[in-house]
């Protein structure tokens, strides 16, 4: 039987969750024995080349590109996992959710301390090529169906490892307290 295929993506996240994937240390060698990676920042494959078994999503959706990417993952992966606080709840980026989008854009391009004096023409990015900003940051499960949620910011490497191993081997997911406690 061919190895299960895994894809990963970072949407509106900080890449911390991907760092945590790498944090499984030398077990990464076991992992590539167990699975094959497809589209992922880990191997820099940019487009899906085949149907995947497991998709792992870091980050929620803050713009239209995130939404397209997430839908693409749903289409190309049999099982989809929300990895980390941002994917599950919106996380830190969702702190903007209480602020009207107009104010967010003003702060980012007109008034913020790093832009206030250098955007004399008061340009707001509006090229067709640029992703469109959503009114708020959405957790992934509000946009596509998510099969599993792995909590943490970032989730511990052990949790990611245990979850992927359980999915691939069909065993029980070990969830000792240390692996899901955060403080």
């Amino acid at each position, binding site marked *: 039987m061919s190895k299960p295929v895994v894809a990963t993506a970072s949407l509106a996240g900080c890449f911390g969750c991907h760092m945590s994937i790498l944090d499984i240390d030398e077990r990464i060698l076991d992992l590539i024995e167990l699975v094959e990676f497809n589209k992922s920042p880990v191997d820099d494959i940019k487009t899906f080349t085949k149907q995947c078994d497991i998709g792992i999503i870091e980050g929620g959706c803050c713009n*239209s590109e995130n*939404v397209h990417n997430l839908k693409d993952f749903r289409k190309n992966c049999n099982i989809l996992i929300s990895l980390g606080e941002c994917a599950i709840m919106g996380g830190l980026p969702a702190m903007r959710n209480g602020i*009207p*989008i*107009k104010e967010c*854009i003003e702060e980012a391009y007109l008034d913020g301390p790093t832009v206030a004096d250098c955007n004399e023409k008061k340009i*707001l*990015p*509006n*090229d*067709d090529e640029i992703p*469109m*900003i*959503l*009114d*708020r940051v*959405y957790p992934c499960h*509000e*946009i*596509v*169906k998510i099969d599993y949620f792995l909590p943490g910011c970032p989730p511990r490497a052990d949790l990611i490892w245990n979850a992927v191993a359980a999915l691939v081997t069909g065993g029980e997911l070990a969830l000792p307290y240390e692996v899901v406690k955060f403080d």
Partner: protein
Amino acid sequence: MNTDLNQILDKYKGDATRLMDILTDIQTEEGCIPSDAVAQLSERLGISRVEVEQTISFYHFFSQKPVGKYAVYLNDSAVAEMKGRTAVAAAFEQEAGCTFGSVTEDGVIGLHNTACIGMNDQEPAAIVNGVVFTNLTADKAKELVAGMRAGKAVQEMVTELGDGVNSSDLVQSMVKNNIQKKGDVIFSTFESGSAIKKCIEMAPEAVIDEVKSSNLRGRGGAGFPTGLKWEFCSKAAEKERYLICNADEGEPGTFKDRVILTETPQLVVEGMIVGGYALGAQQGIIYLRAEYTYLKKYLESVLDDYRQKNLLGNNIAGKEGFNFDLRIQFGAGAYVCGEESALIESAEGKRGEPRIRPPFPVEKGYLDKPTSVNNVESFAAVSQILVKGAAWFKGIGNDKSAGTKVLSISGDCEKPGVYEVAWGLSVQEMLDMVGASNTKAVLVGGPSGTFVGAKDFSRKICFGDLATGGSVIVFDQSRDILETVSNFVDFFCDESCGSCVPCRAGNGIIRSTLDKVINGKGTKADLEKLTELGTIMKAANRCGLGQTSFNPVVTTIKNLPEEYESRLQEESPYVPTFDLAASVADSCEYVGREPNL
């Protein structure tokens, strides 16, 4: 600020634990708590500014912004809606010229929504500067606004008076008691002073034993045995002890404590004096919800009467060393303050945030001293138990639930009001009693209780089956139950104190999932998730609010599934609410581009 702060502070001896009273006085005088008052209070009471502000911001009836010279608080709970609140609200808005949640530009009229004010049998109802107006119509709303514009005193606008004590000089309110059925315990004969006389002939332990053997269970909802609670408290090591009467009555649909306190407050006061004797407590507090401020003068006169007869104060009834006095503590609009540990925090002048237990209040309660908190009706029952005996009391009701229960029944029935019945009545018997026909559903125990449909109308109203603190709401076939459920979900979102994530976020998730269902995008999986979320909330939340707030949703999914089924998406197991076009519309418009979807 015009108010004389010195006078207010002197009245409460500059005691920071009386912050609720101090703020109530300022709010009443000024129509808000001005920021200079906050600064001065912080300095004079020796607490931080934040401590003053967090108490203000926690309570619905405190406001740092002016609420209007005439502040209208119109009930927006489910039964008010059923009885025509929308038209009344529209009339208020049109005549006043401002919308709910705002104050007219000249500052004269403020329109505010508020949760159930304990008048479900005479809705729509509103409170204007402490004065209650019931059975409102659009025309009456117009008249009221005209009166306000003419500068009338609010009391002057009360044109008819209610029944019983409501029409007495000290109350002068249009509120009606609507006592539809009197029973053997609460609305029965009682000779004032008789319970006190009886108790001082007994040893305190014997009083507790009598209450224990009566099998009286708390009437506030949770049903904890009253005698046992008293025993725990009386055995606490510390001798400075407190007794609190929970008259917060915030559960939507409950109004029986209001009627008990109006018609037979002597039973309650005497039950507290008996409790003071049994527990060796020196001080008692009646924690009364702010909505019932119109009863203040009357209840104070009842206390004075007891004092004059030497039945309250020092050496009560001539019994050397039996010292017990009572004061009334007002809340300021927060449902969670009915929870006993939140109530204690509030009575100490703080945010009404439930405490982590243990320690329970019987060990560490008010001012960290042993405290027993009991419901109005529980105290009233104690008085009768003392006079008529535990065996008599046990003979009423059924095996799990001794005595009678005062029910507050409202909604779609001919005779809404208060009914004192023996425990064990079936839902159908109750419906026949109140003149309800064509009934679709009954909510027993208020929003934190249980919705039942026709197949369960043979179930019994008692502990062990359908327990209730008194709230019963009837819905006929014309009602959309999800509309009511939705109203209650809003209520819990508003009233959660916010301490526990599974309550703060859980109620929000219930809100958005229910919206999804109501908007026709829900699936069976969504309902399963809601039920699962209920299990998590029950296990993980700190207090009864978050441990029951999912009940309107979860019990209707279980007992009235047909209310949901027609709205669910059949084919797909997953339907998102997300709409890309809608979510990018604003940002695209602002930066000046066409959305390319």
